[in-house]
């Protein structure tokens, strides 16, 4: 006992040094573990982000090298250009068309596929299959479906004696058509996550409800949806961000046309940067898109999270 006490008193200043040393070595160890991701994030995420903001303040040459510092001019030009306004509108509409409908559809499918029926595994596989399909392959399928002369949709219309529609070539329909294809492509992912969420709900809650004798719709409203809300919240957030960033199917199905009706911001960025070689303007758009996604996500967290019941 005495020995220990002696050490403790004589080492009180030493303790402080020791503690600092331990803290430092702890920090170093932590850093070592973080380093790989920090490097990856730095090279592929943080650096490009900073670089984009930097470039958005410059006029660039065709190589993308900043030439003249122009300050906010790129942004001012964007806000004045009708093309950008159309892009913004198309993006907003695209998000509006795809996210709510996609989530409702995926939720409905997940609830259906969560029943205990023979052969339900087949349906679960089918409903989630789109997750395993590349955008390119899916786009080809939809290209065939939308084809004005041999496509399924126009054949159905023809069978009903309704004149065919130029699904991807009519500015009135193009964005809607792309949205439908996108909903289909994204359903698999949302479905799978939501099904997982449903299966996590304690079965005895439903058994208790069965004994109480409440109706199916009451169970859906009072048990399933509230218990699923954290999953729904996650899926909504991911889908929103995803929708803002959609590129593949637009490039393959419409190339931003017709009459720029599907020229969402991501596609517009791509065109400005790699076709018009206007990297400054493209960067400015990228910054605006980033801000828009950020605002929507923050809003979603602020508003949506209040309605989420975490366990």
């Amino acid at each position: 006992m005495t020995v220990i006490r002696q050490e403790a008193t004589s080492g009180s200043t030493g303790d402080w040094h020791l503690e600092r040393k331990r803290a430092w070595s702890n920090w170093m160890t932590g850093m070592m573990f973080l380093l790989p991701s920090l490097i990856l994030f730095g090279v592929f995420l943080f650096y490009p982000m900073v670089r984009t903001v930097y470039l958005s303040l410059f006029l660039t040459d065709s190589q993308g090298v900043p030439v003249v510092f122009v300050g906010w001019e790129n942004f001012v030009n964007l806000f004045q250009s009708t093309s950008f306004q159309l892009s913004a509108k198309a993006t907003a509409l695209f998000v509006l068309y795809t996210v709510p409908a996609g989530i409702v559809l995926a939720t409905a499918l997940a609830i259906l596929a969560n029943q205990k029926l023979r052969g339900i595994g087949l349906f679960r596989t089918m409903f989630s299959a789109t997750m395993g399909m590349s955008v390119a392959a899916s786009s080809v399928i939809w290209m065939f479906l939308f084809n004005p002369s041999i496509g399924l949709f126009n054949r159905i219309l023809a069978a009903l004696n309704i004149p065919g529609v130029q699904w991807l070539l009519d500015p009135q329909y193009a964005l809607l058509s792309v949205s439908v294809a996108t909903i289909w492509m994204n359903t698999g992912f949302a479905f799978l996550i939501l099904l997982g969420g449903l299966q996590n709900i304690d079965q005895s809650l439903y058994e208790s409800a069965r004994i109480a004798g409440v109706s199916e719709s009451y169970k859906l409203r009072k048990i399933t949806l509230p218990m699923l809300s954290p999953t729904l919240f996650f899926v909504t957030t991911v889908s929103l961000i995803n929708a803002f960033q959609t590129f593949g199917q637009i490039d393959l199905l419409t190339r931003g046309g017709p009459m720029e009706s599907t020229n969402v911001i991501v596609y517009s960025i791509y065109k400005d940067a790699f076709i018009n070689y206007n990297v400054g303007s493209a960067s400015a758009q990228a910054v605006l898109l980033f801000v828009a996604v950020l605002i929507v996500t923050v809003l979603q967290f602020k508003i949506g999270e209040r309605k989420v019941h975490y366990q």
Partner: protein
Amino acid sequence: MRKVELKGLTKSYDGKQDVLKAIDVTIEPGEFFVLVGPSGCGKSTMLRMIAGLESITAGELALDGKRANALSPSDRDLSMVFQNYALYPHLTVEQNITFGLHVKKISKKEQKARCEEVCAMLGLTDYMKRKPKELSGGQRQRVALARAVVTQAPLCLMDEPLSNLDAKLRAKMRSEIRQLQRKLGITMIYVTHDQTEAMTMADRMMILSGGDVQQIGRPLDVYNNPANTFVASFIGSPPMNLIEAEISDSVLVADGHWMTPITADMKAKLQTDKVTLGVRPEHISLAKDSEPGFLVQVANVEVLGTETLVTFDFGEDTQWIAKWNGQSDIQPGAQIRIAVDDHHLALYSTETGERIYCQASEQAAEKKVSS
């Protein structure tokens, strides 16, 4: 109050193996009926079949004399407390308690009144606006109980409701549940794997093992008169001591040299000369100097305050436990002389485990005849 009759009730999940095998029992109105048995013996399955949550493979379930095999759970007019409470985590205590009452055409006002009444009864009034996660285990359990009580259903099913609680709270809730059941006069079917709960709460109990009924009866009858070695070793804490014994002339010989005399009527019941002998721990005592005793070696001693449990070696690979009142200062390793009260012997068939003879039951029968 409801009468529940099971007639040859059988359950098989996979169509091959029976989880419950032809259960026959009648549970009387207002009875506190306890289902007890080891893990996996089919207690929950039986309760869920009565609730209508599990289909009935064969046999009949009757409620108040009417066949109820195909009745939906809500039409059976019962309430159930689940093992994990099954509270809705997103609803407040009050909403949890009144959940589904609208189906029974109970007005909002009446719902509120009833909820307040049961909350007062169960000491939940201060917690009505809280979510389940903000409650302690015991409080959650009371919410589950309140939810069952508030429906005023005449039959209540409970599946191991106390298994998650600590010993002290469990003892308290045991008596609370029992009082509540008496007060409301409901029929209760209560599942547990804890024999103390079964003994202390039941009007009658059923011991299940591997889907078979082992014994049905009042707790004391079951305790004094176990129908077979399974019940003997399951009911009672510590359980009944068992050992194989041989009969030679008019004595019973266990472990080669320990012997006890057997009476004539005992002998009359014996067909074989090999039986399993059962003795309750409280019927083993230290032999007085004048008494004949049997020398054994103490393996372990547990002093519980009011009583002492002494484990001693008996036979080659058997250990017996004796229970004495008071605090004993015997040390492990000591040699002691024990005496077995030969008015409380039970004999079981070594092959089937069925009871052949039990002195307690003979005495009880005699008493009945003479009175």
